């Protein structure tokens, strides 16, 4: 068999070429060889394509005439409604109000979740007593909490925040607990020998070791926070503050298909935006841990 020849750029041919193609799929987001612009574009075009495909299918369904337009609005009408809303400063305010609440609630939930997760994951008795309750709380629909929230906080934003925290904190705590449980024992042994104990051990070893799992918990927590918020914004309506949750409700209440779809798009866009933030953190983490370097 003749000696394989490959360009100096270094594509080994033959069996290797195939093996590498297989491994290439593993190496995501680590394309450090191209410029920033082309990397951004590589990140963007699949998204744009996906959007285009979704729009096409959507339009197709609408044109098929399966449902009347007022039951299922088409892309044109929906995007029109969306455009209208986005030119309305009040709508932006509604988004701002909701975002503010989400961020506040989430921030407190992170603190609470961190504290609860830390304590429960490390203290045996508390783990046995409350460990399973955390998931139990997660499964409790937000709506069940509102009577209590209103009793405690009245019709204030605190009532909403309370429910948001109850929604998000368990996820965050659970993420941390999973991370702690799966911290490699050798690292715990090493830090024990180094003299790390209790709080220091927690801060310098367990927390960073749990970070990937904690980050996953944060992401889930955000989703819970957001959903709880949407529910909460209906129950506790605060004067002079329109909000996204309220908008969603009215779109449904008025059976306004185009409006509902427009609001859903906004929610999706915000969700995707937040995910991109998390993803950035996650990528940084994986780079630091050397997890993107699958091939060397």
């Amino acid at each position: 068999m003749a000696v394989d020849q490959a360009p100096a750029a270094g594509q080994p041919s033959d069996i290797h070429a195939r093996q590498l193609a297989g491994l290439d799929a593993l190496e995501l987001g680590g394309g450090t060889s191209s410029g920033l612009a082309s990397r951004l574009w590589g990140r963007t075009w699949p998204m744009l394509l996906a959007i285009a495909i979704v729009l096409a299918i959507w339009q197709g369904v609408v044109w098929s005439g399966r449902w009347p337009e007022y039951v299922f609005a088409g892309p044109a009408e929906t995007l029109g409604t969306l455009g209208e809303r986005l030119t309305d400063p009040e709508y932006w305010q509604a988004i701002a109000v909701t975002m503010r609440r989400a961020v506040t609630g989430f921030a407190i939930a992170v603190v609470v979740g961190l504290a609860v997760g830390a304590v429960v994951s490390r203290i045996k008795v508390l783990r046995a007593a409350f460990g399973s309750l955390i998931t139990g709380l997660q499964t409790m629909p937000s709506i069940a909490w509102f009577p209590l929230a209103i009793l405690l906080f009245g019709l204030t934003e605190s009532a909403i925040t309370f429910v948001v925290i109850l929604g998000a904190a368990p996820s965050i705590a659970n993420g941390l607990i999973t991370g702690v449980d799966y911290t490699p024992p050798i690292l715990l042994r090493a830090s024990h020998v180094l003299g790390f104990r209790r709080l220091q051990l927690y801060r310098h070893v367990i927390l960073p070791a749990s970070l990937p799992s904690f980050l996953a918990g944060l992401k889930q927590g955000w989703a819970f926070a957001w959903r709880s918020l949407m529910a909460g914004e209906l129950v506790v309506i605060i004067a002079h503050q329109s909000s996204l949750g309220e908008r969603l409700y009215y779109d449904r209440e008025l059976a306004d298909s185009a409006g509902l779809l427009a609001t859903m798009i906004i929610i999706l866009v915000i969700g995707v935006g937040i995910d991109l933030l998390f993803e950035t953190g996650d990528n940084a983490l994986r780079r630091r841990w050397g997890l993107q370097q699958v091939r060397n």
Partner: protein
Amino acid sequence: MTAPLTERAARRAEGDEPAVRLDGVSKIYGQGKNGLLALDNISLSVAPGEFVSLLGASGCGKSTLLSLVAGLDSPTAGTLSVGGRKIAMMFQEPALFPWLTVSANVEMALRVQGVAKRERRQRAAEFLDIVHLGGFGAKRPHELSGGMRQRVSLARALAQEADVLLMDEPFGALDAMTRDLLHDELERIWQKRGLSVLFVTHNVREAVRLGDRVVLLSSRPGKVAEEFDVDIERPRVTDSPEVAELASAVTARLRQEVLRHGS
């Protein structure tokens, strides 16, 4: 028995198709000014059935070289070919699957080959016997000592029944006795199967004991510093004067290399 030395040397010289061939291979980790030139213009080949030992200071690029050959990474420059041969590799770490028992870890090598379950188990047990871990099939990796894990990893690599075997400090965590026993086993299997072996070690005597040829890498960047043909009749004994003699020659050269690059 291997082919007589002269014949093998001749085969190499004649340009017979090598099992592994590196031509001016370089590898740079990272990019730009953070880039690290790990391997610089390495040309090296391993003939079919040849046992090549690779020596070099810590961090000189031996593991990098093996992972290029295994196709786990691609060279920054140069050509690399294994002529479609099947490659087995034993990593520097044991790299066992923590969720599988010791036996199942070895079986993983057979699973891809589509070997049936019963036969898989039986053959895994055989390979575990070879590495002196007969009764440990049902344990999990975390219940083993460091050296035992390394031996499981060896058993798994042997079970792959590949044409080319890459070994990265396979006996580093073993005591001298166990090591000697495994040298014999490895030599036996190598001869029986006609394997091509690329064997990284820090133990010069071991390199000489096992290799048809000893290749010395220099450090930063990794280059081939020198090659030694080992003209000692097999079976060899690690403590034999011939081995000791060549080993001290190699050691002297190695020392020279390390000193040249400073500490």
